[in-house]
């Protein structure tokens, strides 16, 4: 894989950004898309060179969601140029805008919107320049293939128009008018630009980096977060062939070797030569509900409307979700190098800028002494080990200056040490009136943190193991409407009398952080399971019951579309099979997703098999329909895996689920026979993002289908075979 390691380029790029403050503003600042807050200059987003090269910069990262292709489609249409003419640079602290985290299904909303805005203004600016250059009115020029063409045949290409700082102007709030002519990229299923390398063994991942002089490291983790190192004897390890260094700083132990497998073996040898005291520091409770409820909570009422209504039919239920794993297929990896007091870090972190700040604190250096470059890793689905392994890598690069140090976690590290998806308890009570409407709704969700991302050095695993350890900052919940553990805790239904309380638990018993959808997964599972229970109590069809309580026409449309494509009304139930439905609007402000599934339940084995899943999605204006479908299909299948199989287990001393045998995920045999995604395009509407829209609906639709198939209402995730057999 070729990587731009030219330091002059690095400094030059950094220099261009700092120069910008001396330039006059093009216009007064106003309401610009959010990503412009930190990056107001057009040439921070789009650069045009004299040789006609057009480079597009995004602060978001490719995580396998296909964002690179979609962003290029947006810019291509604004500039009226083929996407293949554009080069994209993704998250790099030396080169790209700072757009925070690539998370929360926000990349299209943030970067897509910003790039559309920036590209539109670049086109306007180029049009002015061309009109001046050709001394013709702008309206007489046609824009084609990167050049303005006059009626007399004279041309002015982008590269001719931008000779200096012409694009070094502030973006202005008012959007450019739509580009003339027909859009050719947006709305088309352009093949993803990253896939050919991925299917042919091209250098596609940070794991594939090979830098000159690179060495390999492995970390020896404690048996648990509370474990105390009693003794370590590195003599035998140091005698192994190819060992360059054994690093010890407090409980942070690592080996660096001249070959990767030598590092693996040396780490195993060093692990054998350590003695630990492993206190029984983890809470053991008979159930997840007991464990979560036992933790201190800080309640916040996030919705309180109407009055309490007690007359009518009362229904209540409690739902739980265990700790779960991101469980990336490729363990986290980073490469770091320290040269002349400057660190370069190649990382698959979701936030290279926040990571840089945390690493600077960890290393006690200024942030401009660190450059973090995003290089794709295995899919992360949230805050996995990506940031932690970058911390490992810089600590080891500091121990061996001059040499690029590559660290990849082993499988048991990824399973055992990634920040887990948070266990949750949701209890809900409602009253149905005589007309079968929800007259009262009370909802309480109890949850440990869903965001402990760096931020701060204390958010990095290794930093907490050093002789002078960093303390993790006290986590805070994100405010509504997006929320974190309370994400989607407020139903998207018309509820005149409702109270929703978020019981945030800042002190987690075990490290937890953002996992695809955050609290929305469990909250939607709870709300949509409960809607099913209420519909049955009211003796109303579950789809009709939802429609009765929905107001937003876009929500109604996706519900109706999923139901009709599934054939909900004409459904013929057969033995062992059943159907289930669920709907949510992610974060109550992003994509709409409705899902109908059919399952087959074998009570004797406890096996639940999804025979068919049909979803309908409205994510605003669609840039790449196949990209949206891919995300939704993936979301449905991944959520099926969480829902049917997954839970972290630990005893009083340590995590027990440290490989794919102890923490199984869905295999080919259990994926649906058929999976359909139906899209509703909304040209002109904001991009709403799709990455997390299906997680919650899939869980509830499956649980509801299980009930329909066999009469078992399972409220504790996962619906695995042991639980199905016991129920």
């Amino acid at each position, binding site marked *: 894989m070729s990587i731009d390691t030219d330091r002059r380029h690095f400094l030059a790029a950094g220099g261009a950004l700092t120069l910008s403050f001396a330039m006059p503003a093009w216009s007064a600042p106003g309401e610009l898309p959010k990503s412009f807050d930190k990056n107001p200059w057009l040439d921070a987003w789009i650069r045009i060179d004299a040789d006609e090269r057009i480079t597009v910069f995004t602060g978001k990262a490719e995580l396998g969601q296909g964002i690179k292709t979609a962003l290029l489609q947006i810019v291509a249409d604004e500039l009226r140029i083929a996407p293949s003419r554009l080069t994209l640079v993704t998250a790099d602290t030396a080169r790209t805008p700072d757009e925070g985290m690539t998370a929360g299904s926000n990349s299209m909303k943030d970067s897509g919107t910003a790039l559309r805005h920036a590209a539109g203004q670049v086109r306007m600016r180029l049009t002015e320049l061309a009109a001046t250059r050709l001394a013709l009115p702008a309206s007489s020029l046609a824009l084609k293939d990167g050049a303005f063409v006059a009626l007399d045949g004279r041309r002015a290409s982008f590269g001719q128009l931008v000779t200096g700082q012409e694009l070094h102007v502030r973006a202005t709030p008012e959007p450019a008018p739509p580009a003339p002519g027909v859009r050719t990229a947006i709305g088309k299923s352009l093949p993803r630009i990253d896939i050919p390398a991925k299917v042919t063994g091209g250098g596609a991942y940070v794991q594939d980096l090979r830098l000159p002089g690179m060495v390999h490291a492995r970390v020896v983790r404690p048996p648990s977060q509370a474990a105390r190192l009693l003794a370590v004897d590195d003599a035998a390890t140091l005698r192994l062939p190819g060992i360059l260094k054994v690093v010890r700083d407090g409980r942070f132990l690592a080996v660096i070797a001249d070959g990767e497998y030598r590092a693996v073996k040396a780490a195993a040898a060093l692990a054998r030569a350590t003695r630990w005291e492993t206190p029984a520091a983890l809470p053991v409770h008979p159930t997840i509900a007991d464990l979560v409820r036992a933790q201190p909570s800080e309640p916040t009422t996030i919705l309180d409307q109407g009055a309490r209504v007690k007359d009518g039919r009362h229904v209540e239920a409690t739902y739980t979700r265990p700790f779960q794993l991101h469980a990336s297929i490729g363990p986290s990896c980073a490469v770091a190098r320290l040269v002349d007091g400057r660190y370069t870090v190649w990382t698959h972190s979701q936030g290279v800028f926040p990571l840089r700040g945390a690493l600077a604190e960890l290393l006690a250096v200024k942030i401009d002494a660190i450059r973090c470059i995003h290089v794709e890793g295995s899919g992360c689905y949230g805050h996995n080990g990506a940031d932690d392994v970058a911390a490992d890598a810089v600590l080891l690069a500091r121990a061996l200056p001059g040499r690029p140090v590559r660290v990849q976690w082993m*499988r048991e590290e990824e399973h055992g040490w990634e920040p887990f998806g948070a266990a949750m308890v949701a209890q809900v009570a409602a009253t149905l009136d005589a007309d079968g409407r929800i007259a009262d709704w009370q909802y309480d969700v109890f949850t440990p943190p869903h965001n402990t991302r760096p931020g701060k050095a204390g958010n990095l695993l290794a930093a907490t193991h050093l002789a002078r350890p960093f303390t993790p900052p006290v986590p805070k919940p994100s405010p509504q409407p997006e929320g974190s553990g309370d994400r989607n805790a407020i139903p998207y239904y018309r509820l005149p009398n409702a109270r929703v309380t978020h019981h945030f638990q800042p002190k987690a018993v075990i490290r937890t952080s953002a996992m695809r959808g955050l609290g929305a997964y469990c909250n939607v599972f709870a709300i949509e399971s409960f809607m099913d229970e209420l519909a049955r109590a009211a003796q109303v069809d579950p789809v009709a019951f939802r429609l009765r309580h929905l107001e937003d026409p876009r929500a109604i449309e996706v519900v109706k579309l999923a139901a009709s494509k599934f054939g909900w009304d004409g459904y013929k139930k057969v033995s062992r099979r059943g159907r289930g439905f669920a709907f949510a609007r992610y974060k109550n402000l992003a994509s709409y997703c409705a899902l109908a599934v059919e399952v087959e339940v074998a009570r004797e084995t406890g096996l639940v098999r999804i025979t068919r899943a049909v979803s309908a999605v409205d994510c605003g204006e669609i840039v790449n329909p196949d990209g949206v479908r891919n995300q939704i299909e993936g979301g449905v299948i991944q959520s099926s895996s969480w829902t049917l199989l997954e839970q972290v287990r630990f005893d009083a001393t340590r995590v027990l689920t440290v490989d794919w045998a102890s923490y199984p995920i869905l295999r080919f045999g259990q994926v649906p026979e058929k999976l359909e995604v139906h899209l509703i395009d909304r040209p002109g509407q904001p991009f709403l993002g799709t990455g997390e829209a299906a997680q919650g609906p899939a869980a509830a639709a499956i649980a509801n289908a299980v009930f329909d198939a066999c009469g078992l209402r399972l409220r504790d995730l996962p619906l695995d075979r042991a639980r199905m057999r016991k129920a």
Partner: protein
Amino acid sequence: MSTYRLQVNGKPHAVDTDPDTPLLYVLRNELELNGAKFGCGLGQCGSCTVLLDGQAAMSCMVPVSVVGARKVRTVEGLGDARTPGVLQQAFIDEQAAQCGYCIAGMIMQATALLEKTPAPTDAQIRAHMAPNLCRCGTHMRILRAVRRAADVLAGGKR
């Protein structure tokens, strides 16, 4: 450290390495082939799947010293981004990847199937692919890509 002669993607190689080094590490680090991936090192996920004399094998579990004269094939041996092999093209056509980390292993697992069973049923494809894990949930597309490749090969449209 010993010298091992390996036949990889039709070419002979001599590598100097420790005898217990798994083939995976030799392919990635000595031969600089990116296709086979480290996923678990335990033979549980299939990210490192390669072919040994036509049999799918998890290269993280095969010490280099036991490979012997068996012909090793990796995804790089099927084609490249300019001239992809039939399975690779099918994966591109079906856009059968999200993060793609598992995909090279999937393609090698599928290669083993199609070479022995040129006209597999859908059930055979599912059963054969069972050892390989995908976390992004790209399964439906992977199954379609294998089906498509089988159909292309059956139609002789190479």
